[in-house]
């Protein structure tokens, strides 16, 4: 676990004031999907990004690799994504390609749609090694077999010639991981890597990711809606809501002392197997549309503590304890929390 605090030096990836907007059809306005998002990723750590659908976590990860389709999307000037001192948003295409898939790799949620059905898995794993590391076809094939072995696929020498449809969902996700790791990236972005999988297969894949991270020493950006996955696998957590970071903390600290009412509500809403049968705590309402975020605090319409200040003044990310920040006026006026209970 990293002991460095956010904002200091030594970050591998720095995201500052990232704004990714989408122009919607039928003139419904601009969707501010990601709106001033900032965080750091340190070498070797796992940073969890949690939030529900529509909070902007996937758009954030796609923005880092500049995979946002333009139009309708665009990353606004003033946004910064710095990897080893270089702003990825300003890199010319050839230099960006040398980073993408090589030093920063990504695995996606849906292994079936992100593998090409007409190429063998071996070809798809070898492709990145041929492009980025200039391996010969033979050497790349040997590397592909090595990678399949690494991700725990039985009979890798045989599986290397299989097509995606011949593999189960869990196997495909292992192939995706092999593809992403073939160039030994420094950063792995894992976007809901286990959401499409059954729970026993999810456990296998999460264990595999943890083992590979230790062996290869990479940093992992783990994007998920599942607080259980974050609790077990992240060192630090960024909670997103309505296109913004609403809370950041070390994982233990976040679960022990959730500060933002959204984090608090989310933790209370998770069904637990160790709790007796009881009514669940539900957050009223739903995530608003990205074209019409509420004024002031964006969580205000669903917040049990909101007062008039929250309607007019958008809260800033305030530091409560070192390393723990929350975008909520309760950080500066904690007495309000008791008052409205």
């Amino acid at each position, binding site marked *: 676990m990293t002991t460095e605090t956010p904002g200091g030096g030594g970050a591998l990836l720095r995201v500052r004031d990232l704004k990714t907007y989408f122009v919607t059809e039928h003139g419904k306005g601009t969707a501010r999907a990601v709106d001033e998002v900032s965080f750091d990723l340190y070498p070797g750590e796992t940073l969890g990004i949690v939030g529900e659908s529509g909070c902007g976590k996937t758009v954030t990860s796609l923005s880092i690799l500049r995979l946002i389709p333009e139009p309708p999307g665009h990353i606004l000037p003033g946004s910064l994504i710095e990897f080893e001192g270089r702003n990825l948003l300003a890199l010319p295409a050839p230099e960006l390609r040398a980073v993408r898939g090589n030093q920063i790799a990504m695995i996606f949620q849906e292994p079936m749609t992100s593998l090409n059905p007409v190429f063998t898995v071996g070809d798809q794993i070898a492709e990145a090694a041929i492009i980025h590391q200039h391996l010969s076809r033979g050497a790349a094939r040997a590397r592909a077999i090595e990678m399949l072995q690494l991700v725990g696929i039985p009979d890798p020498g045989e599986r290397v010639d299989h097509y995606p449809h011949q593999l189960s969902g869990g196997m495909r996700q292992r192939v995706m991981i092999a593809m992403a790791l073939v160039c030994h990236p420094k950063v792995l972005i894992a976007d809901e890597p286990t959401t499409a999988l059954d729970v026993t297969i999810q456990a296998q894949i999460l264990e595999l990711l943890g083992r590979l991270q230790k062996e290869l020493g990479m940093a992992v950006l783990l994007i998920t809606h599942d607080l259980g996955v974050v609790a077990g696998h992240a060192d630090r957590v960024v909670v997103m809501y309505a296109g913004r970071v609403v809370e950041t903390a070390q994982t233990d600290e976040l679960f022990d002392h959730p500060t933002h009412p959204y984090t608090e509500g989310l933790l209370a809403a998770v069904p637990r197997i160790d709790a007796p*049968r009881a009514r669940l705590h539900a957050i009223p309402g739903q995530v608003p549309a990205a074209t019409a975020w509420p004024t002031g605090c964006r969580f205000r319409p669903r917040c049990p503590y909101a007062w008039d200040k929250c309607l007019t003044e958008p809260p800033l990310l305030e530091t409560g304890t070192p390393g723990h920040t929350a975008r909520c006026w309760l950080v500066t006026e904690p007495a309000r929390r008791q008052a409205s209970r």
Partner: protein
Amino acid sequence: MTLVDVRDLVKHYAGTRSWFGLGPAQPPVRAVDGVSFSIASGRTLGLVGESGSGKTTVGRTMLRLQEPTAGKVLFAEHDVFALDAARLRALRRRMQIVFQDPYSSLNPRMTVEETLREPLQIHGLHGQVSALLDEVGLDAAFAKRYPHELSGGQRQRVGIARALSVEPQFVVCDEPVSALDVSVQAQVLNLLADLQARRRLTYLFIAHDLAVVRHIADDVAVMYLGKLVERAPAAEIYAQPRHPYTRALLSAIPEPNPRATKRRIVLAGDIPSPAHPPSGCPFHPRCPHPSKSERCRTEPPPLREITPGHLAACHYAAEPM
């Protein structure tokens, strides 16, 4: 009093033929392979399993949305599989289903009001659409909206209102919250619990998530490859699971607690295909039980009572793991 009684339910799908239908027939897919359980009036049975376990097929076959291969379902003493079309239709009023995907189970060209009125007309009932909407926590203004104007949670509320419109006694809830975000999932689970209390409903709650089932079910049945592997009162199965598959499933749930120190059983391998189930105990190739033996490979374990009311299909269910 037992409301629903399922006896030895079997549903096989004919294997497809390769070579554009000219090749040899593949073995049948044994989606449901001899499942028995009963649900008492006003209770909830949670039916849990991973993809391919056959849990959805059980729910649909019970309502005869699919014809069974064999077996019997008694609903309030009626033999569901023996009814003619007219009687089946009359009985359908009393047993309804809420589907998993609120996006594909609502007609996109019908307003909420039309969707809710249709079952009332079919069964010649005089229900109030506004009262139904109110009961599922939707404003009366939603009556004029189309599905695309609703969020996932709102659509699922409409799906629930549609099932309730004909005043059923029994509702099959087929993964009703798995497509929803966690905060909305909690809203819908609470709604289902409230409706059950108010209308004295009986539920078959089908889910892949044991944590969700914990909050709604009185009894839990676990399926694996078309068979029930364990069945017990909910409190009992969570405190003392007997089948190694149930133990592994419970241990694999990621707990929202960074200090959780439970021992995780990570199962090796994938779920086998229901067209080629393993011999003997269907779970034996993945089973982590230390007592696993040759017997597991050859002899299918029956679902037997381990302690009163607690059934498990494992030769070694009574031994510690």
